[in-house]
């Protein structure tokens, strides 16, 4: 049913990738089904929830609304890249603030938040963060702890230390 596959050449999380996929497939399908990058989630498949948010050339994009062939020759970054190497201050802040409950929307929120913090390079306010993340739904948290974490991470990043902004009392890991 899929028709002739199209051969795509792109960069994913810094690596050159060649992948064949049906021409009507979305970037989300290619990431999840061909490359097994499962961090980007399918919540609605219509661009309503933001759980599939990735970055294309550094700009947040909805992978479920992006045809994979439109990523030809471009650089795609998924949450898996954020999770490589030393713990990213955003991940650390989300972890300390319990900003992820079920965690299903979190990868998309992290990718949108990372773009905001990288662009701003300064502490952000709660309302700035809320505006930047308005395209991402979370059903668990009521958003409070996510905003706590994004603001906290923006302060850590703008100090340039990359260190955590103080462990929760009682020690981070118990």
């Amino acid at each position, binding site marked *: *049913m*899929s028709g002739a596959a199209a051969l795509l050449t792109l960069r994913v999380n810094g690596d050159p990738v060649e992948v064949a996929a*049906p021409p009507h497939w979305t970037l989300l399908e290619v990431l*999840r089904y061909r490359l*097994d*990058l*499962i*961090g*980007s*989630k*399918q*919540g*609605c*498949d*219509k661009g*309503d*929830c933001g759980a599939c948010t990735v970055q294309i050339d550094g700009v947040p994009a909805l992978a479920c609304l992006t045809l994979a062939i439109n990523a030809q020759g471009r650089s795609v970054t*998924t*949450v*898996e890249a*954020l*999770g490589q190497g030393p*713990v990213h201050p955003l*991940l650390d802040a*989300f*972890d*300390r603030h*319990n900003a*992820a*409950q*079920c*965690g*299903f*929307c*979190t*990868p998309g929120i*992290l990718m949108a938040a990372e773009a905001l913090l990288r662009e701003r390079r300064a502490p952000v306010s709660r309302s700035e*963060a*809320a*505006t930047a*993340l*308005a395209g*991402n*739904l*979370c*059903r*668990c*948290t*009521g*958003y*409070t*702890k996510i*905003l706590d974490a994004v603001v906290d991470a923006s302060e850590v990043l703008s100090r340039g230390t990359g260190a955590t902004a103080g462990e*929760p*009392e*009682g*020690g*981070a*890991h*118990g």
Partner: protein
Amino acid sequence: MADGARDPSDSPEEVGGEPCDLPEAPEEARREPWVLGKIHRKVDAMERMRGITRYTDDLKLPGMLHARILRSPHAHAKILGIDASAALAMPGVFGVVTGQDFKIPYGIIPWTPDENALAVDKVCHVGDGVACVAAVDEDTAIAACRAIKVEYEPLRAFFDPEEALKSRDKALTINPYSRKGNLSKHVRLEFGDVDGLLDGSDVVIEGEYFFEGTTHGAIEPHCAVALVEPNGILTVWSATQVSHYLHRELAKVLQLPPHRIRVIQPPLGGAFGGKSEPFDLEFCVAKLALQTGRPVKLLYTREEVFYSHRGRHPMKMRYRTGFRRDGTITAVDAKTILDGGAYSSFGLVTTYYSGQLLCAPYNFQAYRFDSTRAYTNKPACGPKRGHGSVQPRFAIEIQLDKAAVALGIDPIELRRQNDIGPGTRTVNEFKVGSNGFQECLTRVEDASGWKTRRPALPYGQGLGIAGSTYISGTNYPIYPNEMPQAAVQICLDRSGRARIFSGANDIGQGSNTMLAVIVAEELGIPLDDIRVLSADTDLCPVDLGAYSSRITLMVGNACLEAAQRLRRKVCESVARRWQVPRRRVVLAGRMAIDGQDPDRHVSSAQAFQWAEADHGLLGEVGSYNTPKDRHGDYRGGTIGASPAYSFTAHLAEVEVDAETGVVVVKKIWVAHDCGKALSRRIVEGQIEGSTYMGFGEALMEEHVVDPAHGGVHAGPSLLDYRMPTFTDTPEIAAMIVEAGDENGPYGAKEAGEGPLHSSIPAIANAIYDAVGIRLDRIPFSPPRVLAALRERAAREARGELPPHKPGPAPQGGAA
């Protein structure tokens, strides 16, 4: 005091207190909590955030087929025939199943098995499953579904519960298994002399309320994968919050013995009650895997999630509440119609809950409720966070607010003076233990500046209060049995680590972390050294599931019992080697420490090795069953009884634009009595998430089908079903109140559902305070607000009402 519950007055001085002359003490050395009640990183959050965790749809098995369900376009129709031959002939199609393959009905409540995995002879709502195809990929399965010919004979459909109840035509009975027409359940219970007390009341408030249906909206759609191994063992992975009940129903419908089935709940992407019973997809993938011999996966589209629903029942409620002049509540008389949709789901329980859970936090001298659940041709309703009691809470809290105005009493004072208090029984005979409601009220009152700010707020701005209560698990399991309601197994190994095996479903609420916190606290090892294996019916003890806010209390107690048994063994082995009494040994900080000589200590690994040398492999189990003295002695008197009740107060601040009807909630203060907060920030997260969800129901969300278009859903997408975004959601100030309960582990009660209830009426009451209108139906949309403002303005113009309060005059009102 229950086994394992610690006296909160334990002082650190007691650590290492000299117990030599005492007989074997039941408790080990006591100390300040070293992990408990603090802030923790969750045991599984980092891997979820990094994209490592495999949720159900992230599973991929060799040779896996993809399934899709063909769904009914009719709200009510007979199935005259299904011809799947063209679909089966398509290349890449491996199997088709229909209702003929699933003739055994099931239902989450054993007394009401009234649905089939796929429709057998008739469809009962738009979206009812009719056939399921397994194919080489999703596109092929979709095309094959289109090739299936179904012949329907449409029947008159009912979208209004009262219309459905009126129908006497057997041919129009919606549910194929119903023996009482379109009546799904009726409950009428009366306690005390309601009519006499109402007659003798100084003020009787009468009101009619309508709570619109709302749905869960978990971001992860339902998904299931099935695999049959060569020896015939069937494994089903499912995004469920009730793996044990799914296990039972799979065995029943597929007619397989339970020991031939394994159910695994992978990490879950939210649930809120929406995944708390079996769904068609689980039966379909299992049957198709058995039929084709290949693994099969089915992922719902978002549209299917909306049509599967099982969300909050629309309820039409008529309330009469009597008061004495001093504000004392005399009697409450409630009559409720529940719109159940096509199937029972949890409806029997919902019908009881719509009345039974109302009898706290306020004392009623007499109470009557009459609740009727009707079948309608809509997606079935079921449990959503705060099951069954969010709707009546909306009604009663507005009733109280109306009474406060009528009696000239401060609305917080009115609630305070009717508080049922701790250590008491409700009018419907439920035993209430701890109760922190007074403190909840005071906390939100103080934090919001209620006393000084409320009288000063101009027209258009207002503050509103509401209170509520909820259960920490139900006292009896869904199917009657004498076995424990919760059980946990813990193993320690010689590297100093612990493994927890628990059947409990972590649905994002953090129950795995809760268990790890208990084990860390008892065994002195950090959360990093604890692995939690949960919700796998082959590996874990049975747990009944993540519903009715039961896990912290029940599974927590079971875990605490097992952990304390292990602690005793470890302390004993260390004490023997140090030749000190066992009570001197303290486990904390990845060490065993001599409480009287803290310089003497060994690593946890060493302590565990000594214990393993003494006892063999270190493993213990713990079980929990509820105390049986909590309920009423009448038919239905067990439903809604709980070992412990949480309490909540919400205080909302709103701004109402009288020109547009737009309500902006500026801030919600919420104080929740969760007993003991085992992990503070996780508890806050539950309070915030619940409050947000109630806010969405109050202002935005409507799960409705459109009768004018044959019963299709009015907006089955996350765009059209409007859930609050980052920018919609108000600031939420969550406050934890800790009235420890003797039945909870360390005193803990629930936090996941209670803090939803009163956020909705608090907003309604704040809107009244702002502009003087009563909104007795949700959601409080701008057209409804405007209509109510116009009505009030007209009454003011006729001299029936004085202006509500000073401030800028309402615009465009009376015209």
